[in-house]
């Protein structure tokens, strides 16, 4: 496989970089060991920061956030909901922080507007009666899946190649250059070898692991953050707690739901992470202080991501690590590897800037004088990415009014024709359709039943449409349900526990999936 650039990692940065390079006419292959946004890019709030959260800890990042946020609102409006945001404090919160907040924001160039408490309660009725301060900011929400899927889809239209489930296993290095890269397809087991001119490590929390394959040393800090999805949307706007950033202090609307988070916990490895029960309880307690309904509302799902932080040594609080990004040219290091670049750190809000700076460096290496175009060229709204949007599948289904197009996921109203288009788009890019990939690209399994009913319906539909054969359906069901379970397990009390018992009765009691090892 011939390519100028190999990008490792299919998160926001990697997919953004693929599009940036493709727009400059540079050929690239993106290898992702799982699927799009499998790491922190999919495990975050979907918050397009105004910057106000970082004003006291990291004013430079705050400023970057503000500029990039504005740019994305004009270039990728279909991925963004301009909700606006509030910073709110309740009785007992640090009064000095509250008093200093507007000035610190002003110094960093972040706009805030003081909001009268009565007015704030009208704007967001779920706010606590113990509200003592409220400021309006320019926060917005962004669908990180749509964003990355649109970035990669546009890059693919321009000739870039995406290899899902493909992991870099080895670099062959001669005279300080990576001559050959060995990759392994986890689905087929097939090995491939590539000889790209430049290799970009955009693997987020896995950046240290990938760099070590090239003998480079990056000291990563793995900071896990967990988040909870409510069954219903709780607020119109992004609600931030007006205090030093800590746990459970941001509530972000996401279409028909709200997302409450986060936590910050050190983990040993970015692999096999789970939202923990104590994190869930802590987030709920903290959130309920801001909005009491968060103490009693039904939660659908928990998830987590690992922030890709690069350590500068001697840290105590991972939130104090710069949220700015690191662009490392490994040709400039002691054990130089001249065609190897790492981009890590940063935030979802600044992904485009990270991709731009990385592409600039790549182009300098390749002597390509093309300027960045992602700063001016709008992100196309592609068909591939559209089904992540809550409400789109039901609207279309109702509009089409076709009784032959049956709903497979009844909670989120996703029909057979949506599954068909996702399968077709995966196939068009030489991908194999699997249930997790279909779930990632749609709302299937994301409603209250969390896959209890839709999993078998989708599996049998995929058999009927010849997408599945042999006994792979059993493994597909097991994998799909386990992925759902990861997010259900810490939230199993009250109704979700009732639902989970039914799920187990069906899938273990009747189908015996646990016996099909």
């Amino acid at each position, binding site marked *: 496989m011939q390519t100028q650039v190999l990008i490792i990692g299919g998160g926001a940065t990697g997919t953004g970089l693929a599009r940036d390079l493709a727009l400059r006419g540079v050929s690239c292959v993106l290898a992702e060991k799982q699927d799009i946004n499998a790491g922190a890019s999919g495990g975050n709030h979907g918050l397009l920061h105004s910057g106000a959260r970082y004003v006291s800890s990291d004013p430079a990042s705050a400023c970057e956030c503000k500029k990039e946020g504005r740019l994305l609102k004009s270039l990728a409006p279909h991925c963004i909901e301009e909700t606006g945001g509030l910073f709110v404090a309740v009785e007992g919160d640090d009064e000095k922080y509250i008093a200093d907040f507007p000035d610190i924001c002003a110094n960093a160039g972040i706009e805030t507007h003081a909001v009268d408490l009565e007015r704030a309660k009208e704007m967001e009725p779920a706010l606590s009666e113990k509200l003592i301060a409220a400021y309006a900011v320019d926060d917005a929400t962004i669908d990180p899946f749509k964003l990355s899927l649109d970035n990669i889809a546009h890059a693919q239209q321009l000739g870039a190649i995406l290899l899902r489930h493909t992991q870099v296993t080895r670099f062959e290095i001669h005279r300080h250059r990576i001559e050959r890269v060995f990759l392994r397809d986890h689905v087929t087991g097939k090995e491939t070898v590539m000889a790209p001119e430049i290799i970009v490590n955009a693997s987020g929390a896995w950046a240290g692991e990938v760099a070590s394959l090239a003998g480079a040393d990056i000291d990563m800090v793995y900071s896990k953050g967990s988040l909870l999805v409510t069954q219903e949307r709780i607020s119109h706007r992004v609600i931030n707690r007006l205090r030093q950033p800590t746990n459970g202090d941001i509530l972000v609307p996401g279409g028909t739901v709200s997302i409450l988070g986060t936590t910050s916990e050190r983990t040993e490895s970015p692999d096999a992470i*789970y939202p*923990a*029960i*104590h994190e869930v*309880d802590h987030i*709920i307690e903290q959130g309920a202080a801001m909005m009491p309904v968060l103490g009693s509302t039904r939660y659908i799902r928990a998830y987590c991501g690992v922030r890709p932080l690069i350590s500068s040594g001697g840290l105590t609080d991972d939130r104090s690590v710069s949220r700015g990004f690191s662009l490392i040219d490994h040709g400039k290091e002691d054990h130089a590897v001249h065609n190897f670049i790492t981009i890590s750190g940063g935030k979802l809000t600044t992904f485009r800037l990270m991709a731009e700076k990385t592409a600039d460096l790549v182009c300098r290496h390749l002597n390509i004088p093309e300027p960045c175009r992602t700063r001016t060229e709008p992100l196309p709204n592609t068909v591939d990415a559209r089904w992540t949007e809550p409400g789109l599948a039901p609207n279309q289904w109702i509009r089409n009014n076709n*009784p*032959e197009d*049956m709903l*497979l996921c009844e909670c989120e109203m996703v029909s057979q024709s949506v599954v068909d288009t996702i399968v077709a788009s995966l196939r068009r890019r030489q991908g194999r359709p699997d249930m997790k990939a279909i779930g990632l690209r749609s709302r299937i399994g994301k409603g209250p039943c969390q896959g209890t*009913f839709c999993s*078998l*319906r989708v*599996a*049998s*539909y995929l*058999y*009927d449409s010849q997408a*599945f*054969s*042999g*006994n792979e*359906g*059993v493994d597909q*069901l*097991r994998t799909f*349900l*386990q992925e759902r*379970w*990861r997010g259900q*397990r810490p939230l*199993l*009390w*009250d109704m979700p*526990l*009732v639902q*989970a*018992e*039914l799920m*187990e*009765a*069906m899938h*273990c*009691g*009747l*189908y*015996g*999936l*646990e*016996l*099909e*090892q």
Partner: protein
Amino acid sequence: MPAMNEMQCDLLVIGSGMAGMAAAMFAGQHHIDTVQVGITGEINFASGLLDVLGVHPQDQGIPWEDPWAGIRQLIKDTPDHPYARLGVDQIQRAMDTCIAFLKSAGLHYTTRHNLNSHIITPAGTVKTTYAVPHSMAAGAQALASKTPTLLVDFHGLKGFSARQIIETAGRRWPGLKQLRLAFPGTRGELYTEHAARSLDLAANRKALADLIRPHLVGAKAVGLPAILGIYRTSEGVTDLEHQLGVPVFEIPTMVPAVTGLRLREAFEQRLPATGIRALYQQKVWDAMVLPNGEFRFSAGGLAPETTIKARGVILASGRFFGKGLRADRSRIREAIFDLPVVQPKKRALWHHKDLLQPSGHPINRAGLETDEHFRPVDEKGQVIHPRLHAVGSILAHQDWIRQKCGSGLSIATAFGAVDAYAQLSRQ
């Protein structure tokens, strides 16, 4: 406020799942003056298969051909399992009695000379069970002898693909062929209950047989999703077999399914004939013990509407899905009496990280601890009330989902508890 209806009885059965239905049935056979209360819902989710024991030890996933030998081993290995309060003979008697009762209600079951049977599921996997509805018996036989079979599925029936079954089970059951039909007279989505009601009529069965017949070439049996009637299923199967000239069988569908509806209808129609007064549209709102030791309940649909006084109680309210148990973020409670619930120390211990962990989730073994008469006991082992018994899935120290013992557990403990209630009352 309208005046409350008042009822008085010897025994109140709370719950209308399999355990509650079985308890009411046994109480009727003991001629105990019984009221049964509980909104029927959960039994609609029954697969129709009556398990007694499929798997033990569950972490090794070993299926038993002889469930009674399995139960003997289970009792030896886990003496706190509810089955250990009964022993094999009583469990067998309970099952036989229940199967005979269902037969009298027109719902025929088949067992394989006291051995377990194996049934193909819509996921293409094989399920080990004990008594199978007569309408599924030929399927167990066909699977066991790898009979070349035509599997019929229907356009619009979601979650049931003959191709999925054939592809998944093909290695252990070669010679399967698919036939996809449009269900006569429908378009778009096909609902199993609708189809089943239609196939209770001979004319519709004939229309279906006419569609299948041309495709029989080489097939020695025909398998269909479980839609062959609700009230006259056995008659329907026999009729189709006669028309097609080969054995015909049903395969379970996704729940809620007509297999559950048939069970519900059989119990609901037959129990009143044995003297049971049933309130299937009502649930228990609150409960108290009167100074004389009797119970007083209020029951109703959307609000309390009936006062029930009872000398004794069989609690068959199920687990979380049946609303017999409730959990908040910190603990599990019994919903009606707040009886002590044996449970893991904290929520972090309720479930494994792996959904399909072979040993099963510890929360599934939480529940009520009882004495040998199925009377709930407190932490010190003291009986909480001399005439309060608990049966079915609410009991602790069992994992009916993984052990594949749900129906057996419900029926056998109901048998044991009603028997104990009757005996203790005579003393």
